[in-house]
């Protein structure tokens, strides 16, 4: 187990390296530069800015400089006229994105797992169809579409604070959290519910469940101790990809609800070709997803020894 864990942790290095190289190449391959504006800047000014930010050097040298900075914990400064450290940008926006993603993830689990369990226990009945139908509706509600509907139905219309329940945009108190969390949670909730249902149906006919029945174990105890416990193991595998979906999915939700999270700063950075911010934010996203996948793999390897031996 230890060698497996060490190998799995070391694997993060090449993943993040290749991810950052790809981001770097794609970014510099894109036309435009941070200094594009109207009216255009004097060529001398552009040359000076390029020199100041090191953009006049060969690509590999730029990358190595950025990389060595990151290894020392320095993400560089934003490629803007009023540069601030990219580390500060991340420090301000990442907690907000994590907060939003975390709340949505918990909501999705809290709704999705019981929904799937109830559907499986009532397999083939009206309850099953209702729960499955609800989950399918969640699959049909992209976060941005659901977000628009929520804003329209539950949000305050402009200049009418007395109508509606929650602010449409912004990020401050708990009243701001409700709508974006629901919008972001719907799709993962549906996926968790569907997966839980399938996983529960797999164990419902397992030998150990029949044995428990024949031993006379009370029904609710069979469900909680024998069925749900085993059914949850495969669910652990999809939580990794789902965390990734939450994190990147929040890009759209942050844009729609005007939340000052990392997704919004990524969209702005990409729009204004803010190279250092793009690199920094993309690296943090990739790291978050890679670590989430790694934790899931480790947990799975711990539960199921066959995984480690690959």
């Amino acid at each position, binding site marked *: 187990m230890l060698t497996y864990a060490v190998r799995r942790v070391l*694997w993060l290095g*090449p*993943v993040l390296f*290749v*991810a950052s190289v*790809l*981001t770097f190449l*794609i*970014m510099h*391959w*894109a*036309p*435009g530069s941070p200094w594009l504006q109207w009216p255009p800047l004097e060529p001398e000014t552009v040359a000076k800015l390029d020199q100041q930010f090191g953009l006049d050097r060969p690509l590999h040298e730029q990358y190595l400089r950025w990389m060595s900075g990151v290894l020392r914990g320095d993400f560089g400064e934003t490629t803007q006229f009023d540069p601030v450290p990219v580390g500060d940008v991340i420090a301000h926006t990442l907690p907000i994105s994590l907060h939003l993603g975390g709340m949505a993830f918990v909501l999705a689990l809290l709704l999705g797992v019981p929904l799937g369990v109830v559907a499986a226990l009532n397999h083939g009945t009206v309850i099953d169809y209702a729960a499955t139908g609800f989950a*399918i*509706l969640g*699959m*049909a*509600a*992209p976060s*941005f*579409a659901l977000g*628009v*509907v929520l*804003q*329209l139905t539950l949000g305050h*219309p*402009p200049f009418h604070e007395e109508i509606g329940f929650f602010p449409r945009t912004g990020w401050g108190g708990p009243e701001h959290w409700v709508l974006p969390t629901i919008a972001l949670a719907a799709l993962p909730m549906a996926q968790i519910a569907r997966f839980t*249902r*399938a996983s529960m*149906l*797999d164990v419902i006919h397992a030998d150990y469940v029949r044995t428990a029945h024949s031993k006379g174990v009370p029904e609710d105890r069979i469900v909680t101790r024998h069925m749900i416990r085993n059914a949850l193991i495969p669910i652990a595998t999809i939580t990794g990809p789902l965390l*990734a979906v939450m*994190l*990147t*999915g929040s*890009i*759209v939700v942050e*844009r*729609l609800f005007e939340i000052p999270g990392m997704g919004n700063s*990524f*969209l702005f950075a*990409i729009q204004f070709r803010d190279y250092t911010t*793009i690199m920094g934010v*993309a690296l943090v*996203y*990739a790291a978050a*997803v*890679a670590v989430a*996948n790694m934790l899931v793999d480790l947990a799975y390897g711990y539960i199921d020894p066959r995984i480690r031996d690959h």
Partner: protein
Amino acid sequence: MSESELTLPPPAEGHAHRSPWADAGRALLRNRAGVAGLVIVGGLALLAVIGPWIAPWDYRVQDLEAVLANGNRPLPPFASWEHLLGTDRLGRDILSRTIDGAQVSMTVALIAQVVVVLIGVPLGAIAGWRGGRTGSLIMRFTDVMYAFPELLFIILLVYVFVGTPAHRFLNGLFVVFVAIGLSAWVTMARLVRAQVLSLKHREFVEAARAVGVPGWKIVTRHVLPNAVGPVVVAVSLGLPSAILAESTLSFLGLGVQPPRASWGALIEQGTEHLDLYPWQVVPPMLALALALVGFTLLGDALRDALDPRASRRR
């Protein structure tokens, strides 16, 4: 009539040569949710093909007179026979634009999956068949791509093309399906590799090898045809995610470019004046939801039909 004749019933008609595909088709048609998905997807596909002929207006035409006659406001739905679902502020017919959106979404979903198959199947087959250094190099690369957040990668790729001739090609659609395909092939490559690995040492493959069939021919003639089922399922489950990715990109303004509009782009346009004309977002939202439900139901049913082990999960 002798007894032996009674005990040997004649073979049922049409069942003499039941192929696995016919079995799967029958299983699909027995699945009510699958039939519903098939009907929805078939309807949308039909709409995508014949849309230009049945749409009451061209999606580009601006009926400015109608908007001016309405006090320079977009027409509400069900107010006139001319514009059954109303117009946007430029007087473009919303029903027609929603119908045209079917063509956009279907095209993107299909071609993105073609890109996925063209990249994922060969790479997965090579990785599974060759194994060794080539195989592990390919798999390591897919592992890295798998860890790269998908939407992030797609947005980055699309920005590479913004303002270039490729971006103007097909109203920006070309870039969208290339970007979606380039990020989604990873799952396909992993799946095909697993299939090839499991088929690699089966008797019929060994037999082909023993009579001296060249390796590439064994893979294309004997191995891959046996892996078609899972590939079909993966493609059908990839279609709704491609539609979702396209509508998300279009909602961010990165997808299809005006005057063409996909459902995501129509929803984005509708949010501009959400309080004054909220009904503008309803038709594209319903269409998008219908497409996602239809493709999901069909994909689930196909998986159940082609994978007998999973059938009781239905």
